[in-house]
């Protein structure tokens, strides 16, 4: 791979895994908190539980983001995840 293309791919991967992974996690935390409170949990407790689990989810997403073979699949995967969460948010709202 030419040097410039390699650098672009690396930048896309770091950006995707770190920022994309965080965005997906933050969205999942907020949606998860709503879902848990709808399931009958006190809403402050639901937020706390979702936020704590968020760190574990982010860790998994980071590791997956840095190990997945193709950087396109990383963006596709996170994009699909974000779309699902967004739909859930609309549904619960």
């Amino acid at each position, binding site marked *: 791979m030419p040097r410039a293309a390699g650098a672009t791919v690396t930048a896309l991967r770091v950006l995707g895994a770190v920022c994309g992974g965080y965005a997906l996690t*933050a969205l999942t935390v907020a949606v998860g908190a709503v879902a848990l409170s709808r399931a009958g949990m006190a809403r402050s407790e639901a937020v706390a539980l979702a936020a704590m689990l968020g760190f574990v989810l982010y860790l998994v997403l980071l590791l997956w983001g840095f190990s997945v073979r193709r950087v396109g699949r990383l963006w596709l995967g996170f994009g699909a995840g974000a779309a699902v969460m967004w739909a859930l948010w609309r549904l619960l709202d």
Partner: protein
Amino acid sequence: MGDTFTKSMAALHTWAGVTIGALLFAIFWMGTLSVFSNEIDRWMLPDTRLEARDAATAPSLDRIAQAVVPGVPAGARQWRVDLPTARTPVVEFSYRGADGAEHGRLLDPSSYAFLPPQGSAGATGFIVPFHYHLHLNWMETGKWLVGVAAMTMLVMLVSGVIVHKKIIAQFFTFRPRKRLQRSALDLHNLTGVLALPFHFAIALSGLVIFMTIYFPQSYYGAYGSTAKDKAAFTAEAYGRYTRKPANAPGPLASLDAMRDRAEREWRGGQPYFVRVWNPGDANSYVELRRSYAHDMTMNLDQIYFDAATGEVLARFEAGPVMTVQRFFSGLHFVRFERWTLRWLYFLGGISGCVMIATGFLFWLEGRRARHAKHGLAGVAVVEGLTIGSVTGILLATSALFVANRLLPADAGYAGVDRAGMEIRVFYLVWVLAFCHAWGRCTRAWREQLWAIAGLCVLAVGLNWVTTGEHVLKALAQGQFAVAGMDLGLFATALLAMMALRRIKRA
């Protein structure tokens, strides 16, 4: 990244380490010192070397109030006293003025008299906050940087385990007399694997403490996104009672009676701080929080009293999930009074420091020859970064302790008070250490190690000269915090000398 899973994890481990390692070392070093923050406080604030008190002789809250209330200006929003503990033999009094700024004084719990201003932030005022926000308060930048470092730490622990497949074998392997590269890797693996559960738990619990900072939108869905929604979430999760001032004068009933009531409500649990909101107002109220000195979980139990009548206004106890959150917090804060565990935390912290430093050394030694041959600057840059962040921060900390004992009581310059000057010395020496490291390259290791050893011994000597206390005297008087700090400084000097010897053979 890389063709196989293991290779991509190796690349991730290497590059995450090189970019975040320096920041991570600073956080680990300050966190390790924070384990003994109260003990370092006794050394840095000699007037507070009072005899430790037991809980049975808790000072009278009414006598404390008598002493401190005249010092609270009109219009203050609150004042607060933190009661003495087994580790802190003083009453910490503070108030928040009408402008929101906080002011503090220390009080002797036997005589109920103020101690003179200490002219130092101590460890709890500088080292502990450095550990969690790097003193970068603008937009919570420091907390976010620490959060990035903690997340990176988790990523590196997992990727590190995946990279090192022969983990059990490496657990028992340490070849201190081999080449530096080999020894560094052995030590990196040994500290990394031996303390793996500690490192994982400490990084994760650190993140959990600030979950509302790191996921600031977490409550948006369940509550809403306004400031009012945030206040509602905080009140429901962490507990908070508020009442608007009546803007008419009002009395303060007996605080001791309120404490007795709280202790009955808590079935023997004792308050660790008392806060009077809207003091002097007819709508003033008093907040008592239950101590967690003997629990891992930092409970959120709080009781609010009407200041004028002493009637209970509100009680709060955390829900089950928030209790788990406070368990994680307690796991990280080490506020409980267990000395064996405290020492294990300290050793865990040191092992983290060693792990990060040896990780850097392995990276450097593996590339030194190749970079020199191809004229690459990588090793020179990273070596300066390593020296500045490892020996540099040790040097800056030693300088902080020396400045603490050396600056005269009335020191001050250009609007910076004595406490501020101590902290400026720390940063100045740290910056100089980085410049020195990039200027002198590999030789800087040796020179900074010598300087650390010298400053540590000097700090012990200065403590003797300025306070009349040395290790034996402190031990005889039961001042274990002071003796421990002196011995710790000696141990640091000794370790620096041992590192010097090892470098010579490299």
